[in-house]
């Protein structure tokens, strides 16, 4: 089992979700996050006073998948989230030690 974490541009969520559905993934968790990488923030101006916001809003997607489709899912996310502009985000993969489905108590790969 792998935990895939992706940081994407917010407006790419729908594209990524569609790509994941095609790749056979049936669930995911999304949260709003802020951060910065190579994409700098933007400048806001209020009555001439400027504010450099260095943190940019992004979405974080988390999903647990079987080992064998992990690479394919990562590829799907990357393809769907890419705009080829700075700030497209990152995807990383971690191993998962255990997993429990709360409703049934199923454990491990059965719970994916």
């Amino acid at each position, binding site marked *: 089992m792998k935990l895939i974490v992706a940081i994407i541009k917010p*407006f790419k969520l*729908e594209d990524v979700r569609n790509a994941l559905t095609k790749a056979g993934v049936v669930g995911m968790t999304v949260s*709003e996050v*802020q951060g910065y990488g190579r994409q700098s*923030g*933007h*400048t*806001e*101006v*209020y009555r*001439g*006073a*400027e*504010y*450099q*916001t*260095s*943190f940019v*809003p992004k979405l974080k997607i988390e999903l647990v998948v079987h080992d064998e489709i992990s690479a394919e899912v990562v590829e799907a996310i990357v393809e769907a989230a890419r705009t080829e*502009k700075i700030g497209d985000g990152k995807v990383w993969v971690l191993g998962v030690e255990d997993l429990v489905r709360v409703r049934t108590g199923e454990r491990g790969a059965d719970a994916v």
Partner: protein
Amino acid sequence: MHYNSGDTAWVLASTALVLFMTPGLAFFYGGMVRSKNVLGMLMQNFVAIGIVSIVWVFISYSLAFGPDWGGFGLIGTLHFFALAHPNQTIPGYSGLTIPPLVFVGFQMMFAIITPALITGATADRLRLAPFVVFVVIWSVIVYAPIAHWVFDPNGWLFKLGAEDFAGGTVVHMNAGAAGLAIAMVVGKRRGWPKEPMPPHNVPFVLLGAGILWFGWFGFNAGSALGANVLSAHAFLNTNTATAAALLGWILVEKIRGGKSTTLGAASGAVAGLVAITPACGYVDIWGATIIGLAAGVICALAVSLKYKVGLDDALDVGGVHLVGGIVGALLIGVFGTAAVSGANGLFYGGGLSLLGHQAIAVVAAGSYSFIISWILAKIIHKTMGFRVSPDDELEGMDTALHAETAYELGGGFLRSLASSGSAEAKIGPPQDQPLTDLFRKPGERR
């Protein structure tokens, strides 16, 4: 000249009420767009107030209500340019009991809200500078002529006998047709209709609707240009039709198997207000109820048409204002009664002639507005580029066009806490800066 202070007081109050409708409209629309575009929407409405206020007193008032040019009833002359001759009687209004300047101000507010109404059709995708240019030219070549045709006693539609008490053709159909024309020129919002674009702040929409309803009493009852029985008719008819349309719209929602929605209630109220606008001084309470109900039901059905024809009339200016305006203008031909004022319609023994006049007014105003607006928008689109860049559209108008964010609430809490360090302030100009540097470009470092 002796003026009636009661009439003057009422029209002054009405003028203020109608001005207030445009900020109300801004919130009605602003709540319906996505949160990244709300300031862009508000900005267009506030800027419309700024521009039209100036254009009106200098030029377009005179074109609309100045002495008729050549006797064709098509347009006025520049006799009243920059409010020249402010104490002269307005041509055709010899019985006016209010100072002419009060009339100038009252009519100005109509000229302001009409282009503001258009912004709903083109939400989320217009650049500001071309919009400014559009509004300036549109006020002169579209609004002023149509106002002259219909409102001015020397206008050809007025002389023909077409009835429009407070602007069903001049304001609502005009704005609706123009909105469709520009939406056609600039194209769909990116992602429409596949992506969901739900309203980001429905209470704003309802607040805006409340302000509109409130201000509409000035719009309609003020159009009697006095505090009298006719204004009382217009006032009550306005309220009755609005209530009926609100109920009509949510009834349609229930009958179609859905839930009644607050957005539907607000939209129905506006549809009813729109439809009663031309009719409020010509029908009785029965007519007002039927017109309101008809507008609520028909507009509720009409707003789905945009998906069928693939035209992204984003906030339903066509479906509500064009269709609602047509419903109201035509139904005067059916329910108009001389017992209130004006001519008798079909149901009151007046035959079909009034309905015919109303139909001519609908076709003339609608097609003139659509065609000229389309041409004007096309020219601006080809020369200046009417539409924001795809990147800016994705980013949203607020930060892309105006360098602002609407809200710093939950998600922005981090940022609004001074000590969190989640944003660096570079508040300019710095304290050691010479005064000449006030003209420094924002963002430019010395």
